């Protein structure tokens, strides 16, 4: 009876562990932005086809999450925030995550092609490739611009949603992309300022580690300035309108002021109040993105300009 404890060494996962591989919280953002992109598009599609499209875009996002966890298991095991993920905690084997990721990616792309169109499906395939290969395998461990360029992966979903309805790309979908793309750096770097993680130990070249916290503060403020014109420009296109414009002006003013306050603070002051301003700006960035896409949704519902 010496083999009775063999199970304890390679524990079998339960169903929830595979769900955790798909990064449900990231998926919720993908679902929301993809749905808005699809909804505001000028072409009406059947509600069930729209539902399926958003579902398969989300599944594709989940698949890239699983591939990310497979490849990054070594980093995740080092950092406290990610130590309890399914692979570093030993609940799921790395190979299983790879298999789940590849199979789900294939299913998501094929089903999106059948449900919506093959342009959107190709776009989804490219997004999965971009996140899993370009960002995870290459940029993340190589350059402090990792999250800037990798942010494109998170910015594609509303474009895919738009492509599901229209079968193409337009200035509106490109501006929705720009909105998320330029929002990502200040969002992540605000987090990096107060989550003093062991990026250094894990070998991830985050800007806070490679160029220092002062530079990171300057970059945060700079990106809030770059972001604002794109948010306003989106309001001048066919998907914009008075409601969106009002939200965009207020949210961008608040975000720029937040970025300015982060810039002006010294590290000592930040430590003294446990990064209250940085935490506030991070929280504001979440509301910022949510408010913009919600405003687009409402604007499309009541009619634009």
């Amino acid at each position, binding site marked *: 009876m010496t083999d009775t404890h063999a*199970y304890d060494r390679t*524990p*079998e*996962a*339960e*169903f929830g562990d595979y769900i955790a591989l798909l990064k449900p919280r990231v998926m919720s953002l993908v679902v929301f932005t993809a749905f808005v992109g699809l909804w505001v598009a000028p072409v009406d599609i059947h509600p*069930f086809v729209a539902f399926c499209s958003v*579902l398969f875009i989300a599944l594709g996002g989940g698949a890239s999450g699983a591939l990310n966890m497979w490849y990054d298991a070594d980093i995740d095991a080092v950092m406290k925030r990610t130590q309890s993920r399914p692979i570093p905690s030993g609940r799921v084997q790395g190979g299983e995550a790879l298999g789940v990721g590849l199979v789900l990616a294939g299913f998501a792309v094929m089903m999106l092609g*059948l449900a919506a169109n093959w342009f959107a499906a190709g776009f989804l395939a490219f997004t999965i490739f971009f996140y899993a290969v370009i960002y995870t395998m290459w940029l993340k461990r190589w350059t402090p611009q990792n999250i800037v360029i990798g942010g494109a992966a998170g910015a594609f979903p509303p474009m895919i949603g738009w492509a599901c309805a229209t079968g193409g790309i337009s200035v509106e979908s490109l501006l929705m992309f720009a909105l998320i793309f330029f929002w990502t750096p200040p969002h992540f770097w605000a987090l990096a300022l107060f989550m003093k993680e062991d990026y250094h130990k894990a070998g991830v070249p985050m800007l806070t580690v490679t160029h220092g916290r002062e530079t990171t503060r300057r970059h945060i403020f700079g990106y809030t300035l770059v972001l604002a014109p794109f948010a306003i420009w989106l309001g001048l296109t066919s998907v914009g309108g008075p409601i969106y414009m009002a939200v965009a002006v207020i949210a961008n003013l608040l975000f720029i002021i937040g970025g300015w306050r982060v810039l002006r603070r010294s590290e000592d002051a930040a430590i003294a109040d446990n990064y209250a301003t940085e935490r506030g700006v991070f929280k504001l960035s979440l509301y910022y993105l949510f408010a913009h896409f919600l405003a687009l949704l409402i604007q499309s519902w009541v009619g634009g300009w």
Partner: protein
Amino acid sequence: MPMQTEHELHRRRRSRNVGLGLVLVAFVALVFALTVVKVRQGDLMEAYDHQPRVSVVPQEEVSQ
């Protein structure tokens, strides 16, 4: 009375089996519903069936 004890492992294994079963049932229902929607919309359903048919031959050839 069965002579076996329920290991915690069996609970996890069952959760996996039930979960996968539900996912498969949901997938079948989804494909069925999607098919119904697509057919009602009158989308092109004819695939190539290994021999030329009037509907899949280019128009010029038909008229010759």
